């Protein structure tokens, strides 16, 4: 029973079954099952469910998850952050500038980048809270500002908009490994030797398994989901997040530090975007001015699929994680299913819309809300 204690305590005397069902993530669970059944039926022989295929959509889903956790907590606290995508591009570029152009040790470059980006998050939150302007507008402005800097700074310093050489600069760095390494290599090698995973047939890596470890990106995604879920459901701060998003005035009157909660959530969103960016530049070894385009909407979509309300005060981190999984599986699954590329967005739109409608419908039935 303890695991459902975060549900609305104002509804009293409900049956066990009903209590088990009144969860924001129910829609996400149903959607996840539906999506997997769907692709299992239509793309099972396309390589989507071999080791490489699974790794492919897992990594894409994990990427969505990282930014969805931040967006989810912020949305429950009643605010949006549209600057996530630009923040990803900006953070990656900062690492390249400090680590490659200025040749600082990579761990210092990463820490400076985190500091700058979290400061921008705090600034977003401060402006939103102090002016009372919609976060939609404030972070839209940040979206342009950060994207502009992401193009301007490398062009001024390096005369180009893609800065490479990060992998070389990060070689042997302890903090870079926390974001860019792969773990469990011996297990995957063993699986490869045992023939469970196919191995490279030629080249310098012959005999190695095609999937040689779990990227830290996935570990970060799972870690953030667990942290976010714990924060939201097991701590006093989590209650404050719900209260701030549900009715900020009522929350303030009952002593919740709404201002601090909201600013902290903006900072956490910026933190998540930076984690995404660091993992990305460590994997690919270069930062580009076009990275992270439209990722803010992908984060919001994942959160909404996961059952959170756009108006705040209701939602779940587990739901958002499932939303990210659905989004990732659908996006890559459509490629596996061989959908004509120009129809790709149509399918994506239809499936997302269906997921959200389904979700709302389920929520209305189980919560009795009109």
């Amino acid at each position, binding site marked *: 029973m303890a695991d459902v204690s975060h549900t609305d305590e104002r509804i009293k005397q409900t049956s066990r079954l009903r209590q088990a069902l009144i969860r924001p993530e129910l829609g996400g669970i149903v959607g996840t099952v539906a999506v997997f059944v*769907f692709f299992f039926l239509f793309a099972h022989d396309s390589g989507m469910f071999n080791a*490489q295929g699974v790794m*492919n959509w897992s990594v*894409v889903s994990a990427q969505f998850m990282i930014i969805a956790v931040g967006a989810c907590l912020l949305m429950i606290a009643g605010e949006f952050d549209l600057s996530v995508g630009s923040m990803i591009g900006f953070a990656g570029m900062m690492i390249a500038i400090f680590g490659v152009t200025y040749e600082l040790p990579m761990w210092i470059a990463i820490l400076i980048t985190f500091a700058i980006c979290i400061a921008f998050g705090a600034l977003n939150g401060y402006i939103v809270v102090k002016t009372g302007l919609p976060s939609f507008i404030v972070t839209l402005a940040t979206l342009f500002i950060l994207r502009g800097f992401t193009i301007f700074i490398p062009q001024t310093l390096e005369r180009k908009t893609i800065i490479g050489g990060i*992998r070389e600069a990060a070689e042997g760095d302890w903090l870079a490994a926390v974001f860019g390494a792969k773990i469990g290599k011996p297990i995957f090698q063993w699986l490869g030797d045992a023939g469970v995973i196919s191995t490279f047939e030629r*080249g310098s890596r012959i005999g190695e398994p095609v999937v040689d470890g779990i990227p830290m990106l996935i570990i970060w995604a799972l870690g953030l989901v667990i942290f976010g879920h714990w924060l939201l459901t097991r701590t006093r701060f989590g209650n404050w997040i719900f209260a701030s998003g549900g009715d900020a005035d009522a929350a303030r009157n009952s002593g919740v530090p709404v201002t601090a909660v909201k600013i902290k959530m903006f900072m956490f969103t910026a933190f998540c975007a930076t984690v995404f960016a660091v993992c990305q530049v460590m994997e690919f070894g270069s930062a580009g001015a076009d990275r992270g385009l439209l990722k803010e909407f992908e984060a919001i979509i994942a959160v909404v699929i996961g059952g959170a309300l756009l108006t705040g005060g209701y939602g779940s981190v587990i739901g958002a994680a499932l939303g990210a999984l659905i989004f990732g599986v659908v996006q890559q699954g459509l490629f596996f299913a*061989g959908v004509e590329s120009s129809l790709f967005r149509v399918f994506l739109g239809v499936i997302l819309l269906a997921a959200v409608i*389904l979700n709302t419908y389920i929520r209305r039935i189980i919560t009795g809300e009109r």
Partner: protein
Amino acid sequence: MTSKMSKLLASAALVAAPFLATTAVADGHGDDLTYILVSHAPDSDSWWNTVKNGIALAGEQLDVTVEYRNPPTGDLADMARIIEQAAASQPDGIITTLADFDVLSGPIREAVDQGIDVIIMNSGTPEQTREVGALMFVGQPEYDAGLAAGQRAKDDGVESFVCVNHVISNAVVAERCRGFADGLGIDLGESMIDAGQDPSEIKNRVTAYLNANPETDAILTLGPVSADPTILAVEEMGIAGDIYFGTFDLGDNIVAGIKDGTIQWGIDQQPFLQAYLPVVVLANYDRYGVLPGNNINSGPGFVTADGLEMVEKFAGEYR
């Protein structure tokens, strides 16, 4: 909950219905060879339509299946995932651009090492192609093409220029501007402007630049996306035909511009060949084991007002 579950299943089936139809069409060739072409272009870039037509024609003629994939927003990190995805689906070959070596070389080399034949098209260099272990490069060496264009412009008396770059994040395309500047024998300096992708924005930027720098001799645009609004800009400013105007790539408006004298020349890198030839090469390699011994240069070819007829007929479709 059972009735709700059945409703859910019904909705799932509803979503599945059009899906089934599409898969059937995609597999309609009923052939054993499947190739995937991965581009770096965002959905909004119309130039790649020629590439789609090229692979469609090659697929039809050779009776093979060729699928086209691209990152919707043009984000190269997303493109890397698409290449990984393509490799996971075990096609007979992958044709891909190499727009950023750092990002794409890893996934491409992994595909090669899995035994998938890869051909690099459009973006990249012969050296990079060799390094990732691809069979060959089919495209236009960008710097050389820019250099040739710059030398040509210098012979025509050009001393300064503005480069209208609509894909500022693509380092390879920017080489065209650098080559052009070197061809003219001048420093690139502030001559390259980031025009963005939006037509009215591009037009305004070009107008603003030319007003601020009235001594500019020449305009270089890097594709129809930047050329079309630039044509409008020079027409509006009343300097069409007066200012030296060269462009990379072709399209309906560019061809019309060459015809009426607004544009001196267009450099055709012949995207049709970049898409068509790799399919031909891969299919014949898979079927008969024959392979051309070198990279294939699909361009540069200068298109001027002479001999426009064929170009005009197929502009935007196969040219």
